[in-house]
């Protein structure tokens, strides 16, 4: 019985989860992202290694020329990779981590910081990953819980990331996702250090 329900879930859940989370709610402020001219999911920015990036250009919403694309409302990020740089897609990531291809049907959660810093991609089929920026993958399947969860955890390079212009731009963009995550997952609020007016959060 459980296997039948799991099969039904695997077939229908990806579409259902998108409908549930991305009816373009007020928290969704992710930019339209392209890498070497190909559209990727915006959360790919969290999992990009700046060492692979040749150029990164942020086009603000007021300078957008596109019409009729909802996500253009929040700007566009155009990334070009250095020669020879290669990104992984979801099936390649699963292969690298020795997971079965079935996992691609599970909803992917991208975890990138504190326990509250987790987001669903809008379209996991076009997620792109730098191999070096993925720290781990986790399959969670608690007893009695029919629906397994799959998460990809970002590697934090607190001491290694150089503060190049591209690195700083990526940090700034990642902050957008952090804000969204903390509003979507308010149960795990971050701790604020320092003076209140500095609004300095770690």
């Amino acid at each position, binding site marked *: 019985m459980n296997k039948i329900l799991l099969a039904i879930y695997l077939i229908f859940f990806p579409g259902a989860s998108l409908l549930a989370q991305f009816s373009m709610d007020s928290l969704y402020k992710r930019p339209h992202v392209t890498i070497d001219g190909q559209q990727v999911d915006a959360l790919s920015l969290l999992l990009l290694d700046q060492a692979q990036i040749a150029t990164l250009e942020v086009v603000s919403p007021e300078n957008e020329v596109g019409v009729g694309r909802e996500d253009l409302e929040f700007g566009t990020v155009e990334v070009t990779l250095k020669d020879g740089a290669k990104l992984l897609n979801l099936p390649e990531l699963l292969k690298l981590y*020795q*997971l079965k291809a079935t996992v691609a049907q599970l909803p992917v959660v991208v975890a990138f910081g504190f326990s509250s810093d987790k987001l669903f991609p809008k379209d996991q089929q076009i997620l792109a990953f730098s191999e070096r920026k993925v*720290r781990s993958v*986790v399959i969670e399947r608690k*007893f009695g819980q029919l629906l397994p969860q799959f998460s990809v955890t970002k590697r934090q390079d607190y001491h290694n990331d150089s503060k190049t212009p591209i690195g700083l731009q990526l940090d700034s963009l990642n902050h957008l996702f952090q804000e969204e995550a903390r509003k979507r997952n308010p149960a795990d609020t971050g701790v604020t250090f320092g003076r209140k007016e500095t609004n300095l959060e770690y």
Partner: protein
Amino acid sequence: MKKLLTLVVFLGACVHLMAQETTAYFLNGREIAPASIYFLNPTDIDSVKVYVSQLSGDSSIIAYTGKEHKILTYDEVLEHFFIKQSAISLPVNTTYYSGVEDPENLVFSIDMISSVQITTDNLEEKRGFLDTDLVLLGTVF
């Protein structure tokens, strides 16, 4: 009451005998990895026998489960968590026990394992980048 007594004897014997020279663990007649004791739900254990050699100090703990309790082997856990069998060669750590030497002999109560992580964390210095570890995460009571 009988269950509770069995539980106390099992846990007490495990703790006491881990301090001995060598302790072998058996479940339903099969030798299991010592790390398995952290993944076995004591309520699944029906009976326990403890043998201690007077000469060497070596000991054995032999436990039996009832037929109604589902105990998973390591292969079955990989299957349950959608992991390819090729991952069986990865080094294994658990939340309670690092560096499991004989993961193929691990056994699990199904309700005692909540997630499996495949990680490349902090391994660059040790074994070259993108070697992976498999971490079995248990349920914390």
